[in-house]
């Protein structure tokens, strides 16, 4: 029992994921700054932001709306992100093998943060937050099918194996899934799904700082906002880690850990560059992009897998 609590809270759970995600979020901001020829924030900036919100600022509750739901929603988001991260990282770091079908559980847990943002913002009673929440819902409906198809294609490619551990092992004994045409197509679709899940720029209509003044988070201040930041940091680490696990060979022990870190940094670099070179789409365009083009891409990949390519 104690060992599971250690897994959940310290390594590879909450603490480790939060620190790794915060450092990745600094990396993202620094790359953004370099792309715009700026200097960028210092290394510990995400930690300053988090502890300022958690320890210094007061929290203002909305006058109209449900206060308890408003406060519980960010905790639900952190819980979902940490739980999903745990199921991803335990097989990835070869600590526990997981169980049959855990990739489906991961898929459901990964949607929990987005749902918690929707619940929290609708509970705040702010009209801008409601607009953000409805956009987030439409975005979830758009990308979730593509993400599920990517997961299904990976399961098919690994020979109908439903757990993370065997998927990673299949790649390590054979070759990584990205080394084939269908793997590349799945990687492209997966990167766009992650972009939408993290609500980074081409798909950031729920926050839309310039039109909705950070939309779904508009009413949050102080410690609840710190929890949202925490959930976002964790998601920023575990989603690239998930993609690396299911398509890019996972992690080998020993010196290969550096190779694993480089793969994560590479995926995040790709996300950041997409974010910095694109304008925000309209919600209709995003739906069309996922429901038509990305689904088509994954279906083509699945057909290729069926032919063994």
């Amino acid at each position: 029992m104690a060992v599971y609590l250690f897994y959940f809270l310290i390594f590879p759970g909450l603490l480790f994921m939060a620190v790794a995600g915060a450092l990745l979020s600094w990396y993202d901001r620094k790359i953004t700054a370099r792309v715009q020829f700026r200097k960028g924030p210092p290394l510990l900036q995400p930690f300053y932001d988090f502890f300022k919100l958690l320890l210094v600022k007061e929290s203002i509750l909305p006058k109209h709306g449900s206060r308890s739901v408003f406060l519980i929603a960010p905790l639900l988001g952190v819980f979902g992100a940490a739980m999903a991260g745990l199921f991803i990282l335990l097989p990835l770091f070869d600590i526990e093998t997981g169980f049959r079908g855990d990739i489906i559980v991961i898929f459901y847990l990964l949607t929990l943060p987005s749902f918690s943002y929707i619940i929290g913002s609708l509970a705040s009673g702010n009209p801008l937050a409601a607009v953000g929440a409805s956009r987030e819902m439409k975005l979830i409906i758009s990308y979730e099918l593509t993400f599920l198809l990517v997961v299904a294609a990976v399961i098919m490619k690994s020979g109908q194996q439903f757990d993370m551990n065997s998927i990673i092992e299949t790649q390590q004994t054979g070759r990584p899934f990205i080394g084939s045409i269908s793997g590349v197509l799945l990687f492209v679709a997966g990167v766009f799904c992650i972009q939408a899940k993290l609500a980074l720029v081409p798909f950031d209509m729920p926050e839309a700082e310039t039109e909705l003044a950070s939309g779904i988070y508009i009413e949050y201040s102080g410690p609840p906002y710190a929890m949202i930041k925490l959930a976002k940091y964790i998601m920023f680490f575990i989603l690239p880690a998930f993609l690396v696990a299911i398509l890019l060979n996972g992690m080998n022990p020993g010196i290969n850990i550096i190779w694993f870190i480089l793969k994560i940094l590479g995926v995040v670099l790709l996300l950041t560059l997409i974010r910095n070179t694109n304008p925000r789409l309209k919600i209709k365009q995003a739906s069309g992009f996922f429901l038509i083009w990305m689904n088509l891409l994954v279906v083509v990949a699945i057909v290729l897998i069926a032919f063994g390519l």
Partner: protein
Amino acid sequence: MGFKDYCFRKSLWVFHFGGASCNNCDIEILDCLTPRHDLERFGILLVGSIRHADVLLVNGSINRRDRDRLLELYRQAPKPILVVAIGACGCTGGIFAEGNTFAGPVDKIIPVDAYIPGCPPKPEAIIAGIVKLAGKK
């Protein structure tokens, strides 16, 4: 200076309130956030919601309508919040001080932590003011 203060000073998020401004100060404030001056290296970000703000930047002459809005914003901001008055109009009223609709400089309405005078102040002056504000206490 404790850990809390240090974190607060290293991550000041700014909410920008423009009163009846002539827009020169607005342009200079935006200039601070552009790549040339880059306030993000001090951890300063421009936020869109007063709920996330640590610093309330006020510029422009505050007339009778702005007065209520400024008070409401100050009431809605999570404390602690620092208030910075930018430009001659924000600090003293400038050329509008005798005007009919003028409702007093910012410090007659809400407590002000830093004044950055100038018409408009240069971005360098704004950065100097913010750095001094971060070093306060």
